[in-house]
């Protein structure tokens, strides 16, 4: 195997330096094992099929530094500022109580920084296999735990804000998110990843989500990190009988980002949606890799991802639906559409089906191209200037997918952000 561009040694050094300060728990041993396994594996290379289109070039320039104290921050920007919510704020991977506002929690709900719950070994799953997930397991300093007991309904959304401050080079943070929903419980979780500063930094998030019978989770992730940030997120989701997992991801930021999601529909009637959008410009690289395992009968999945690429941006979509033997009556649909707005943008799309049962309905589609010339002509013929016409069409293209965001209150915000992104992208295009 080809040698990775990025050495694992500096991270081992980071671990040594951090070790003394890491929250003590029964996990200490596991951290060591994870580190050893990570060093054995090394960072992924493009020779690995799942990383074929994503090279870790910029990460190679990063020397991880040890930080045990987050830089100061007076106020964290808040999503849905006017809405009552349970808010947790993390700065460079560390929980900041003074910026957070947990609000009032209903009976049966437990929401807290992960460090307060580390005695429960089961919270950190054992079977991490990817290099980044293992690295996270070794190095995580804090994170969030959201656990609902059976039948608990959480009215207010949980908003997790992860702020990266990259004033000095070498930030290497590894937050962790654990969501456990008991039978018939319901929650809405919104993650917001943002940052300040222009130095190279690594955010390496791992989330593990578990939905018991009949539970429902709406999960929205808005990623707007700075251009030098390398953002890696690995999410593993198990969905129990008749449970529903609806997620929506928006990728706007980070120089390089990779979202790797693995969903396992384990119980009869389980369903999931992995929708989202990516809007990338400049030299951004955004990778969305997902696998949905249908392991039981009557399971349903939908994945609709639409994106627009400007500048020299490169988008990667790798989606895979696996129907395991015996998972009859499965319905799986996947769609990836990409608009290329510039001559230098590139999309690599790989929608995959792997089917081992016969009574199934599975379909996927992928398209790539520029705006429809006819639609553009139609608008221009009605006196709409070209720039405006283009913007209208892109907005319409994205409006479709934003409608799928399960948190209605966020849609307006997302449309706004898309509009601003578009204005900026076309401005740059015109300047170029």
């Amino acid at each position, binding site marked *: 195997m080809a040698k990775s561009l990025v050495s694992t040694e500096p991270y081992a050094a980071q671990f040594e330096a951090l070790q003394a300060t890491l929250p003590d728990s029964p996990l200490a041993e596991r951290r060591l094992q994870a580190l050893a396994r990570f060093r054995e594996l090394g960072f992924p290379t493009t020779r690995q099929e799942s990383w074929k289109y994503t090279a870790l070039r910029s990460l190679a320039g990063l020397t991880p530094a040890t930080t045990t104290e987050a830089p100061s921050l007076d106020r964290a920007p808040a999503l849905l500022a006017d809405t009552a919510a349970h808010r947790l704020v993390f700065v460079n991977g560390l929980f900041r109580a003074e910026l957070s506002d947990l609000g009032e929690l209903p009976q049966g709900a437990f929401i807290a920084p992960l460090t307060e719950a580390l005695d429960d070994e089961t919270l950190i799953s054992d079977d991490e296999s990817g290099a980044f997930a293992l690295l996270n397991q070794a190095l995580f300093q804090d994170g969030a735990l959201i656990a609902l007991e059976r039948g608990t309904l959480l009215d207010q959304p949980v908003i997790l804000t992860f702020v990266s401050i990259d004033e000095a080079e070498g930030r290497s943070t590894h937050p962790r998110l654990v969501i456990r929903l008991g039978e018939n419980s319901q929650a809405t979780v919104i993650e917001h990843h943002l940052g300040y500063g222009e130095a190279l930094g690594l955010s390496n998030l791992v989330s593990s989500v578990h939905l018991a019978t009949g539970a429902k989770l709406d999960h929205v992730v808005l990623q707007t990190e700075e251009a030098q940030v390398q953002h890696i997120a690995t999410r593993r989701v198990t969905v129990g009988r008749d449970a529903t997992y609806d997620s929506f991801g928006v990728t706007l930021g980070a120089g390089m980002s990779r979202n790797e999601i693995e969903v396992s529909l384990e119980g009869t009637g389980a369903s999931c949606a992995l929708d989202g959008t990516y809007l990338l410009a400049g030299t951004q690289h955004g990778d969305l890799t997902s696998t949905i395992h249908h392991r039981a009968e009557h399971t349903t999945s939908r994945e609709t991802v639409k994106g627009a690429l400007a500048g020299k941006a490169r988008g990667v979509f790798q989606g895979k639906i696996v129907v395991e033997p015996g998972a009859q009556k499965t319905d799986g649909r996947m769609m990836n559409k990409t608009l290329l707005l510039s001559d230098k943008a590139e999309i690599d799309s790989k929608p995959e089906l792997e089917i081992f049962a016969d009574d199934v309905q599975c379909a996927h589609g*992928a398209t790539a191209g520029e705006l429809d010339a006819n639609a553009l002509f139609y608008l221009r013929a009605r006196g709409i200037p070209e720039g405006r016409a283009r913007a209208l069409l892109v907005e319409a293209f994205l409006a479709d997918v934003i409608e799928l965001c399960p948190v209605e209150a966020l849609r307006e915000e997302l449309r706004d952000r898309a509009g601003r992104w578009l204005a900026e992208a076309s401005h740059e295009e015109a300047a170029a």
Partner: protein
Amino acid sequence: MAATAETVEKVQSLSERYKYGFVTDIETDMAPKGLSEDIVRFISAKKNEPEWLLEWRLKAYRHWLEMPEPQWAKVDFPEIDYQDAYYYAAPKMKDQPKSLDEVDPKLLETYEKLGIPLREQEILAGVAVDAVFDSVSVATTFKHKLEEVGVIFCSISEALQEHPELVRKYLGTVVPYADNKHACLNSAVFTDGSFVYIPPGVRCPMELSTYFRINEQNTGQFERTLIIADEGSYVSYLEGCTAPMRDENQLHAAVVELIALKDAEIKYSTVQNWYPGDEDGKGGIYNFVTKRGDCRGDYSKISWTQVETGSAITWKYPSCLLRGDHSVGEFYSIAITNNRQQADTGTKMVHLGRNTKSRIISKGISAGRSQQTYRGLVRMGSKAEGARNYTQCDSLLIGESCGAHTVPYIESKNRSAQVEHEATTSRISEDQLFYCRQRGIPEEDAVALVVNGFCREVLQQLPMEFAVEAQKLVGISLEGSVG
């Protein structure tokens, strides 16, 4: 033929198992078992080849030794012992036959059983056939008629003797010897194959056709086909393949290179019916084939049509390099797997020139315990202004133990290029089967009928004579898959 007679015949053919599973007892001239530089030299010497070709073969052989076996395909088989096979087996003949009359009658009988009566075809059908038996080409019909219009259609060994400059100019330019392990092996030990050259502006007056057959035990077949359509010409080419039933696996690693110059068009159709092994997956052919077409000139077109029903393992990706501006690539495929067959097949469309177009229609049917994968690549290069691709891959599942997988790669570096990909997988419709059965059509026939409908878009692309044969094949291949 009267309708009733046709029905009787169809039913008969449906109840047949692998009807091409006979062995012809013919004396053959064989090279010693195994693979080494000496064998490569032996083959080259046997064929009286020029020095440059021997050098090329040896280069390929040395490279092959180093190359890793491709691992990415979704197929599973024990490691191949390359030393346990014969790399050269030729039916013994005193001299090169001048006409069909001199060909060993037993051989001709074999071809007749296969449904290619060379003699009759010479007179009636108007299809020129080049038949390759084990390793060497035995007879080429219709040669003279083709010569009149300047078309060269002969075995590649003959072409090497008579038109060495053409072969040298084009051989290995589409599939380089180091392309992949199987192509590399082929480059080292290829024994025969067909060579076609269509001169500028000529529309080949008849369909050209090759029939491949592996007869001898433990032989591999490594044929190499090279088709060149010069400016403004047109040719339609068909190949068919069969092999006797044997318990051990046999290797077939062919290479096909197509070159279409400006305004030329090549239509290449394959009906592949190698022995697929028995119900338990014993025996059968390993069909590891590299096929690639190069649309070198502007406005050229290459169209692949394949019906893949045989082989224990199929590993095959007929591809098009769309280099010329406005060139067109097409890929129509039906792949049927039953019992324990494995097929990993698809295509690559590499758009390099401006306004290039490609269309991919792939229909996969898996039954029994077979596994089938469509694996395809559509790449829009940064200079492929206005390029267009449409891909449709449908899979049909029959029975709960089979698998159907779709692995498309779509890469676009040009915003004006438009790529569309659609794929569906579902089971054969209960409603349609019920409808047929209600009207007294037995279940097995009903399945064949529904499947034929499912494949219609591709079957239509086949030359008339072979469309009928292919339809029958669809029925035979699925036999035993229901109930």
